[in-house]
Every structure is written in C-alpha cells, then in structure tokens.
C-alpha cells in the first residue's frame, strides 16, 4: 500500500520584496564576484586571498540559513518560491530567464553546500599553505561554490544546466590544479570530457522536455509532467539518468572520480564527496514528478545505483591509497543515494546525501590531515599507530568511520537503513535490498581496514624519513574536522523521530520527510518502519560482521597478508586492477576514437584534398595532350589544313547536293 504524504502542490509563489529569499540571487553572485576578484588581483592579496574567499562563502552560508528559516516560517504548501532576476534567452518561441527557485529541496542543498564549503575553505588555509598559486586555489574554490549554488538555485533545466557545466569547469580547474604533473592534467581532462558525455544526455533531455511542454522552467514543466507522453517521459528519464551518471560517477561514467583524487584533498572533500557528485542525485530528486509518471525508469536508476555500489565497494576493499579508497567509497555511497531517489524514496536519498556529505567530507579531510603530516604519503601500509600522534584526527575519524560503517546510533545507520527499507516494498526491488545489505557489509569492511591501518596497529613508518614528522594538524584544519564529526554523529536526528530511536521512521513527525514533502513526489511511498525491524537488524549485523572481519585481518598479529593474497588470487587482482574498466575504455573508446580520427585525417588529406589537386593536375594533363599536337613540322600542319579543307568541301557539297537534289 502506498501512502503519499503532502502531495506535490506544484504551486510556485512570489517572495515578498526585501526578504532573504528575494535577495537569494546574491548567494551565488557574491562568491562569483569574489572568485573574479581573486583571479584578477589575487597575487597581491597573498595570505589575505583566503580571507576574501571565506568571507564570500560565509556570506552565502549566512544568507542561505536566513532563507532556510524564512522558508520554514512559510506555510507548508507555499514553500516553493521563484524570484526572477533578469531575462536571459528569448529566441522565437523559446524563452528562459535567470531566476531563483527556492523550495525545501533547494534550501537543504543550499545549507549543505555553503556550510560544508565554508568548513573546507577554512581547512584549506592550513592545507594549501605555501602553495605558489595560493590565491588562485581559493578563486577556483569560490568559482566552484558559485557554480554549485547556481545549479541548486536554478529555476529551469537550462539554468540548472549552466550551474551543471560550470561545476564541471571548476572541477576541471581544481583537479588539474597542480598541472605541472602530466598525470594530474590528464585526470582533469578525463573528468571534463566524461562529464561532457553526461551533459549531452542532459541536453537531449532538455530538447525533449521543450518539444513536449514548450518550456524549460520547472514551474511549468513539473506540474505538466503527467501529461507528457509516456514514451517521451521514459526517454527524458533515461537521458537524465545518463546525465546524473556522468556527474555523480555511476556505472558507465564513474571512471573519472578515482582519477580526480589528483586534485588537492580539500577539493576531493568539497567536490568529490560532499557537493558536486551529489548534483546527479539532486537532479533526479528535482525531476521526481517526471520519474513518478514512469516508475519503471526509477527502478532502472535504482538498479544502476546498486550495481555501482557493489562494484565500487568490491574495488575499494583492495586499494592501497587512502584517498582512492574514499573515492570508491563515495561512488558506492552515491549508488545508495541513487537507489533511494530511484525507488521514489527521495527523502531517504537526500537524507543519505546530507549525512554522506558530513562523514565523507570528514574522512577526506582527515585523510588530508594525515597526508599533510606524512609528507603526502597515501599508502596505508606505510602508516599505522597514528592514534597517539594525531589524537583529534583520530577521534574525529573514529566518528566518521562509525557513521559510514552504518553502526547505530550514528548518522550513516539511519540514512542507509531508510534507503534499504525503501527497497523492500516496490515490486522487483527486493533484489536491491539483498545486494544493498552485502554492500553495507563490504563498506564496513573496507572502511574499518582504512581506519585500522592508518590509526591502530603497529607503527609502520620510519621516523627519520625527510618530512615525515607525524604531528597533529594546526587548529585551522582540526576545527572543521571536529564540526564535521559532530555532524556525522548527530546527523541521524535530521530524520529520526524524537519519540524513540527504534521507531525512528514516522513520516509525519520526522523532520526531513515532512519538510521535503512539497518538492518531491515519492511514487513508491514511505512504508512505516515497524514491519521492517528484522530487516534493519540483519543489515546492522552484516555491518558488524564486516568490522569484525577487518579487525581479524588487519589488527591481529601474525596474519600473513601475502599468503592471503595468493589464495584470493584472481578475485584480488580483479578488484585491485579495478575490474580493468579503465583498460576497457582505453581500448575501445580512446583507441577507437583515435583510429577513426586518424582515418578521417588521412581521408581528408588524400581523398578530399587529393580530388582538388587532382582537378588541378587533370587540367595540366589536358594541356600536355594539347601540346603534343604542335609537332613543329610544317608538313603535319599542312596535313591538318588539308583535312580541314576536305571536311569543309564535303559539308559544303553535301549542303548543295541535298539542297538541289
């Protein structure tokens, strides 16, 4: 039985003048302006560049919070507000304007982006200290924040798309920030191009939406969603899935995220954990009315999500790079969010998005702090026993680890359970619940491996190595860690009912569900929790088992890892080599593309140009034939004259004869 809470009203009101919502267009503009300023005169600001950037993002954070409170004050059904700023494109019957849409979904995303962004800006002061392009880093961070805010506040597919591509640009700039190393530059290009492939899906979807509804603005398109022909709706849904897969690194297009670790760690934390990668999830949630009309497509989204989650989790178990492990973990957790939004449990998806934002950013920053202390060492096998040396990082990472492992009462448990519970009812989704549970176990395993190898266990690093002076990071780095740790721990309360932790899912009372209701269309409905207590128990048990397995393997002495690897043999290699996905793409797309390009280039040079020059040579050839007639001998000329005479005589005579005859 599916119960829908507050139905999707599709009513979009106007903000009253002067309110924070009305001035909401400043939220993205201020960081954009500050980015421009930093780019132009950043060098002269030196250290103060960071402060300018932090001020800008701080303003956006405060403004977002005020807007959030104002939105809360509004009555529940009037919470979708559009404030137009200026017309942008008006061509023939196609018309799009720059305007801001603030509704519960956008407000929640605003808070995540701005506050996590602020924390990471602060964190970057310490992390990026001494970098020769210090000011440019903060300029790019602000540019990213501005783009993400444009994406979140976009009121139409097109304005969202503008943010979508600008976010791709800023991630290109940030991944390739240390472009001196060719590998990092290639990673940046790879990210941009793979995003671009997703964007093509987005554009075609926009064409379909426009030709079906005559407009691209959400306010007009979403209420008309049920009227769109189902064939078109399916196409739009799938194409948007391609777009989301490109941006949120799902199965076919996830290859760029692990390479994106080439960027500085704060970038990985902000962009590749908390904000940008969640854009795909936000998009699917935002367009839920369209997905509601074709649940089948939602199921495909969910299956893509769970498949990605499983694949990424398997790969993460054997990686020997603390950032790569986190990267694959992000891909995996994004898979979870896709399950949520795919199965119509958008609230669960967004909830996991928020909690993931907290604990994944925390883990990345912790990894950054560890690398900062260990001269950018990323191999966990060269660390260990950092518990005593870096207490704050250890404590905060502990909370982060518990949250992501999905152990109660931390935030990860609540959000992951909600998603898995949502997978119980919809037809054909039970399989997803099973795989989801396995992935939960795997997640617990590799995250515990990550945590144990770095912080617990024997010291596996030499003291005297140059630059290796494990010590606690400066307060500017540890303060964000602590705040994020609080978020990871308490995040669960966002959607937990105050009544009792066990009955923690009561749609009416839990804060997030009721708050997000007006802007999403949950088509499979949120089933009450009670009948699923056993399911939740199983998942938690599997998670605990994962932790235990990691403990057994990595903390107990005398475990011969080398022998273990032989026994695992093929599986180990398969997972370690990332299922050879990169090599597959390399062989097919790159080599194929390059081959085709070469073929066309030679075709162009040989055939097309050949034809042109051929004509030239042809005419020249004709000339030489003509030349040969001039033999130079007077008698051959005489012969020609004679032949002419005979011809003329014949013609003349013929004329006379049949004239007379």
């Amino acid at each position, binding site marked *: 039985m599916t119960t829908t809470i507050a139905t999707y009203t599709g009513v979009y009101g106007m903000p009253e003048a002067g309110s924070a919502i009305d001035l909401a267009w400043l939220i993205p503009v201020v960081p954009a302006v500050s980015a421009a300023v930093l780019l132009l005169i950043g060098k002269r600001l030196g250290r103060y560049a960071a402060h300018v950037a932090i001020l800008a993002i701080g303003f956006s954070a405060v403004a977002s919070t005020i807007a959030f409170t104002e939105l809360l004050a509004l009555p529940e059904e009037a919470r979708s507000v559009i404030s137009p700023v200026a017309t942008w494109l008006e061509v023939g019957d196609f018309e799009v304007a720059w305007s801001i849409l603030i509704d519960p979904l956008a407000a929640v995303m605003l808070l995540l982006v701005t506050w996590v962004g602020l924390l990471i800006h602060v964190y970057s002061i310490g992390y990026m200290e001494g970098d020769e392009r210090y000011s440019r880093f903060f300029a790019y961070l602000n540019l990213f924040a501005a783009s993400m805010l444009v994406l979140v506040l976009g009121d139409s597919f097109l304005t969202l798309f503008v943010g979508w591509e600008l976010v791709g640009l800023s991630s290109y700039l940030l991944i390739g920030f240390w472009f001196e190393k060719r590998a990092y530059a290639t990673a940046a290009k790879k990210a941009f191009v793979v995003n671009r492939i997703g964007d093509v899906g987005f554009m075609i979807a926009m064409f379909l939406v426009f030709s079906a509804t005559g407009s691209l603005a959400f306010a007009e398109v979403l209420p008309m969603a049920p009227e769109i022909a189902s064939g078109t709706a399916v196409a739009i849904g799938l194409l948007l899935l391609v777009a989301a897969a490109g941006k949120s690194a799902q199965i076919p297009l996830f290859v760029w995220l692990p390479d994106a670790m080439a960027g500085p760690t704060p970038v990985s934390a902000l962009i590749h954990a908390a904000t940008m990668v969640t854009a795909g999830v936000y998009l699917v949630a935002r367009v839920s009315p369209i997905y509601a009309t074709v649940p089948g497509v939602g199921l495909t989204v969910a299956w893509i999500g769970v498949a990605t989650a499983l694949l990424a989790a398997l790969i993460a178990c054997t990686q020997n790079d603390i950032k790569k492990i986190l990267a694959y973990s992000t891909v995996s957790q994004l898979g979870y969010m896709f399950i949520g939004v795919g199965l119509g449990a958008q609230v669960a998806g967004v909830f996991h998005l928020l909690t993931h934002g907290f604990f994944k950013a925390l883990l990345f920053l912790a990894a950054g702090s560890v690398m900062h202390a260990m001269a950018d060492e990323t191999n966990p096998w060269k660390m260990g026993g950092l518990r005593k040396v870096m207490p704050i990082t250890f404590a905060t990472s502990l909370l982060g680890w518990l949250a992501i492992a999905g152990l109660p009462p931390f935030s990860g448990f609540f959000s992951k359970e909600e998603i898995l519970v949502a997978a119980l009812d919809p037809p054909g989704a039970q399989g997803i619940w099973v795989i989801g549970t396995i992935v939960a176990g795997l997640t617990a395993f590799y995250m515990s491996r990550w945590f144990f190898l770095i912080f617990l266990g024997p010291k596996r690093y030499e003291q005297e190595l140059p630059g290796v002076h494990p010590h606690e990071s400066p307060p500017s780095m540890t303060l964000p860690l602590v705040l994020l740790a609080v978020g990871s721990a308490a995040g669960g309360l966002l959607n937990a009912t105050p009544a009792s932790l066990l009955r923690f899912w009561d749609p009416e009372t839990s804060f997030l569900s009721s708050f997000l209701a007006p802007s999403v269309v949950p088509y499979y409905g949120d089933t009450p929790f009670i009948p699923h207590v056993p399911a939740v128990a199983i998942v938690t048990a599997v998670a605990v088992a994962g932790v235990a397995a990691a403990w057994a393997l990595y903390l107990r002495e005398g475990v011969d890892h080398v022998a273990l690897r032989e026994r695992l043999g093929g599986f180990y290699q398969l997972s370690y080599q990332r299922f050879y996905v990169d090599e597959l793409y390399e062989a097919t797309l790159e080599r194929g593309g390059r081959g085709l390009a070469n073929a066309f280039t030679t075709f162009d040079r040989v055939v097309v140009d050949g034809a042109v020059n051929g004509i030239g040579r042809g005419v020249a050839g004709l000339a030489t034939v003509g030349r040969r007639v001039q033999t130079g*001998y007077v*008698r051959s000329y005489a*012969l020609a004259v*004679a*032949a002419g*005479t005979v011809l003329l005589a014949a013609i003349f*005579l013929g004329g*006379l*004869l049949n004239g*007379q005859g």
Partner: protein
Amino acid sequence: MTPLLAQTEAASGSAEFWVFIVIGAVALGSALSMVLLRNAVHAALMLVVNFFAIAVLYATLDAQFLAVAQIIVYAGAIVVLFLFVLMLLGVAGDQAFTGRIAGQKTTAVLLGLALFGVLAAGVAAPFLGEGTACNVPVEQRVDAEGPLCEGLAVANADGNVRGVGFLIFTDYVWPFEVTSVLLVVAAIGAIVLGKRREDPGELTDAPASAVPALRDDDDDEAASDEDAAEPAAAGASEDDEEGTR
C-alpha cells in the same frame, strides 16, 4: 543517262576531244611523276612538261593569251628559278621519302583521294551548268536563230588578247595596279632576304664551316660561331632540342 555520259558520246567526234585526252594524260602523268621522282631536278623538269600541257589546254579553251603567258611566266620564269635555287643549294640529291612524321604519307594519300572524291562528286553533279545553253547535248545547241552556246566566240571576236586586255584595263584596273605593287614588294623582299647578314653567328646555329660558300668570298669575316652545335643537317632525333633554343 546522266548528262556527263551524254556529253562524252556527243563530243567524241571533235578534234578538241582528242587533244583533251592526250594532253590531259600528259598533264596527269607529269604531275604524278613530279611528286614521285626522288631527284628534285627531275621533278622540276616534269613540272615544266606539266605547264606546257596546261598551256595547250588553255589554247583549246580559246585562252590563247593565257597559254602564252603560261609558257613565259610559269615554264619560263618560275621553273627556271626553281632550278636555279636547286643548283644553288645543291640539294638535288634524292631525298628519302621516309618523313619523320608517322603516318604522314598514308594519311596524305587518303586525304587526297577523299578530296578528289568530293570534288568529282561536285563536278559530276547533274545541276552543274543546268539551264545554260552550253550544257545541253550538242544537237540541241543550235536552234533556229543560230548557235545558242557560242562559247567565247563573241568575247574573242577581235582576238583573245585584245579582249583580255580590254577587260583588264576597264573592270580590273584596280587589281592590276595592286598586283604590280605586289610584284615590286615581292622583289624587294627577295633582295632583303637574300642579303648576307652582317653577323651570321647569332642567326645561324649551324657551324660556320657547314654553311657552303654562300657568302661573297671577298669579305673574310670570322664567323666566330662559338656554340659549335652539332651540324643540324644530321637527322636529329624527333624531339631533340635544336641548338641554342
């Protein structure tokens, strides 16, 4: 029967016919032999015979003035000039027929035959001379009032020369004057061309020695023809680049 055949039986009786047949054959024979004889001098002599034959034909055609003119101008002057040049250049030697241009001979002969075919068809055409008095069978040429086709009788009434002279100095006086100018120009031209160049070097690319003693033997200019190109007279190959091109 075509008019042509009709005319032959009718005319066979008269003396003119026999003259025509004999002289015609002589003319053709001499023409053919002129073309075929290897030795240029023999050819020239054959030409003379041809001219005489034609002169006789003029006479039979009541063109006595022309007949005489023919003998004086053509046979007398032009052929003699030919012989003179032949002797001067000493090229009377029999020349090989094989020209350098492939297929020239056969095409030439074919073309000749084709042309003859066309002309003959034209000449034999029935309409030629239709309706004029002379083109009828002999017996119809004389009717009641007297001979219709009186040929040149009237024109030559007081002699062919007087008739021709009268005509020249009345209707054709302008062409007459122009041709006289032409003759003068031709003469001057021949003299200029014939004159010896001051510096034969830059003109001739044949070695001075190869040029026969054309020059006046009194001036001994040193024909310092430095670029002693190989003698051009030798059968140069088809596409050889001539001397100082």
